[in-house]
């Protein structure tokens, strides 16, 4: 009885409620920090040059590899068995990763001279240097390492030049050639005699072709020198093989590096991750096109959604007459926010891509149909689909900020002889800009992380041609883009080499978080700036 009264008293005083609310908040914090912690820990470690261990098994075979994790499983008798997961690399001769039962390991060693080669094909090689091949002649031993250090930068230099030529001049020529060919096709179809003009086009084509051949020759020439060299390596099982110089991305001796060397390596890898293109079906290399695509798409989305949402909200908040229609519109807008995003994707595909895009193609690009230009997924459609998806957020935030402008201030303006339009433009809009910005920030946060609708409206697994480049007309809204969210899905769940791509998943997730955060910070800074401006300054 007494304790019941005590409980009652506690309940009426609300102490229990304080605890309840406090622990709910605590749980939220734990979940959020847990999420960030897991992603950061898993994501940050990817580029660190891990120590390579040599495992000698009792049965005889020797493996060198990176010990990635341990786990305890049940053995055949039902007892406990510890085993290591080891990344042995050398994908061409078997699996990248292997499991090793701990009782079978006879000895472990850390050989100083073990080398890790990052290659354009077959992933990493882990083993030892046994020689250097120069024009088919073998240079053995220590000289090989010196030669590798000397020749690799030259090969990389040549590779850079080649890709520069391919990306720049040759792509330029290719677009020009395509255009000329289209014109030629048109002329050929014409009823009147156009042979003179066709001849002119042919002459231009020939010039371009000659130019193209010149570039091709130069590329062949650039590739010739690195192809003369190759590194002879020996894997742990004693098999020797030659890795041609153009196939090497980078090499390092992980067991013979100082802390600073490791840090430098880490920095170089992070740089590559941020600013290079993906390799090996996205599991290696960088994610630059995905970063570019994500940011550009989000910005384009904000540019599209802001005026649209703000104007709608102003109509709803200032002009529309209260009534059943307005209520229905409000309900519809709020429900729009609850529609699953893939539904927006389907709408984007059906209406924007096939409807609007297909229409544009029929009107302006009919000569290259059935090959679609706008009538297939692309940056512009992905952005517009997301704009539609985030529209309710902007409308609701704007309407709320309009409603928060004091009635007295609006009346003050009207009493001065301002029209309603002037009042909205000069008093209500400036006062609600911070609220509008809050809506845009929320829209960015929602839009940048969305994946499902993008998969069908313009995001591709691999799209290294950026929508902004040096080829006229410089902005290509019809191009497909890469997106970090989709990249995570693709690398993590569509890749043939799941173990190898796992760190990539976390690193990309971390990067996506950082980018969303950065976009938000930029928007918040702009909002605070605007707030200050409209509070104190003249406009």
């Amino acid at each position, binding site marked *: 009885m007494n304790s019941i009264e005590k409980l009652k008293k506690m309940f009426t005083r609300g102490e229990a409620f304080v605890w309840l609310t406090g622990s709910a908040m605590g749980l939220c914090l734990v979940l959020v920090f847990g999420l960030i912690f897991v992603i950061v820990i898993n994501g940050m470690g990817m580029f660190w040059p891990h120590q390579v261990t040599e495992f000698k098994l009792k049965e005889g075979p020797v493996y060198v590899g990176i010990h990635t994790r341990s786990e305890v499983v049940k053995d055949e008798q039902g007892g406990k068995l510890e085993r290591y997961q080891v990344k042995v690399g050398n994908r061409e001769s078997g699996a990248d990763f292997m499991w090793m039962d701990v009782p079978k390991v006879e000895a472990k060693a850390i050989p100083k001279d073990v080398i890790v080669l990052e290659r354009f094909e077959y992933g990493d090689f882990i083993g030892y240097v046994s020689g250097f091949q120069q024009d088919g002649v073998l240079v053995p031993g220590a000289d090989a390492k010196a030669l590798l250090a000397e020749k690799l930068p030259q090969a990389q230099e040549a590779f850079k030049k080649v890709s520069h030529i391919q990306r720049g001049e040759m792509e330029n020529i290719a677009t020009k050639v395509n255009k000329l060919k289209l014109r030629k096709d048109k002329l050929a179809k014409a009823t009147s005699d156009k042979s003179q003009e066709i001849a002119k086009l042919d002459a231009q084509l020939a010039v371009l072709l000659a130019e193209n051949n010149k570039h091709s020759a130069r590329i062949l020439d650039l590739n010739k020198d690195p192809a003369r060299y190759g590194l002879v390596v020996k894997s742990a099982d004693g098999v020797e093989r030659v890795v041609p110089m153009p196939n090497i991305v980078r090499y390092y001796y992980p067991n013979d590096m100082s802390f600073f060397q490791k840090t430098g390596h880490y920095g170089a890898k992070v740089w590559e991750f941020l600013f290079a293109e993906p390799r090996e079906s996205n599991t290696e290399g960088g994610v630059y096109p995905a970063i570019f695509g994500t940011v550009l798409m989000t910005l384009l989305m904000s540019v599209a959604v802001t005026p649209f949402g703000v104007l709608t909200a102003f109509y709803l908040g200032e002009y529309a007459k*209260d009534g059943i229609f307005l209520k229905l519109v409000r309900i519809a807008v709020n429900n729009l926010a609850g529609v699953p995003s893939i539904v927006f994707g389907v709408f984007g595909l059906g209406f924007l891509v096939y409807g609007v895009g297909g229409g544009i193609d029929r009107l302006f690009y009919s000569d290259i149909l059935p090959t679609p230009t706008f009538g297939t997924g692309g940056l512009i459609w992905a952005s517009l689909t997301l704009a539609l998806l985030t529209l309710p957020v902007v409308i609701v935030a704007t309407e709320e900020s309009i409603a928060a402008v*004091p009635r*007295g*201030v609006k*009346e*003050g*303006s*009207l*009493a*001065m*002889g*301002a*029209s309603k339009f*002037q009042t909205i433009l*000069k*008093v209500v809009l*400036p*006062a609600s800009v911070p609220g509008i910005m809050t809506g845009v920030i929320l829209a960015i946060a929602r839009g940048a992380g969305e994946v499902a609708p993008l998969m069908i409206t313009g995001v591709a697994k691999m799209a290294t041609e950026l929508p902004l480049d040096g080829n006229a007309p410089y902005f290509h809204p019809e191009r497909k883009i890469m997106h970090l969210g989709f990249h995570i899905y693709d690398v993590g769940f569509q890749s043939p080499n799941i173990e190898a791509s796992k760190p990539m998943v976390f690193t990309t997730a971390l990067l996506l978080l950082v980018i969303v955060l950065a976009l938000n910070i930029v928007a918040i800074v702009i909002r605070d700036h605007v707030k200050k401006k*409209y*509070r*104190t*300054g*003249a*406009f």
Partner: protein
Amino acid sequence: MSNESLIAKTKNVMPEETKKRVESEVQMKSLKTSIAETPEGTYATCIDIKKLNLYYGTKQALYDISLTIPRHQVTAFIGPSGCGKSTLLRCLNRMNDLVDNVRIDGEVLIDSKNIYNPELDVINLRKNIGMVFQKSNPFPKSIYENVAYGLRIAGITNKKILDEVVESSLKGAALWEEAKDRLNDSALGLSGGQQQRLCIARAIAIKPEVILMDEPASALDPIATGKIEELILQLKDRYTIVIVTHNMQQAARISDLTAFFYLGKLIEYDKTRTIFMNPTIKQTEDYVTGRFG
């Protein structure tokens, strides 16, 4: 027949209820003439309200108000909350148009023009009538931009004119000395009293004929109130001022004429001195002496 004898006569023959009503009706009719015929001379009429009825939906808020407001005088509307004095004030610059479901009949003549004429441009009307609200409502802009607002929306961009008007208006509102060094600071940084004077400066910047004040000092402390009252007395020379107030001392201090409203009806309208010292109607006397309301 003089007013007094008319009232005396009706008092004697009518039942109590009817007597009261007739009393006020007769009073209103006679009051208008009596104000116009003061010993100091005649007042020029500025605003003439004729048989104004106002309805919010089906609810009537003002009953058959007729009132003339003289030029370059301070006229105070007093009465308990909900008596319609603010509503009447807002009829004078058609601010009630902004409220849904309002219906008005009757006429309001300002300078002999009916402002409820459907052909009249409300925006031009409001440019001619300044308004100061109960709660100071400076725009979230600089002090300078607040005062220049009326000119800017009228399309004036000449910096020299704007500068001159801002200075003269702020001087006119007795705010220049306090604000001249911070014209570009936010108006929201001013104190309550300063904000209210800024609103007055904003109103006089467009050089209106009439200034309507809706309890301009009710949210201010006594010192700020004193400054506003002083300002009102100065502005009287150039503007016709109509002020709604809850504060009877204030009405007594600053107004020349006072109208007392009760439940949407005009009960008594006379010179302020008469209303406070020697009101004709019992209700007025009860109200001004604090016995009710």
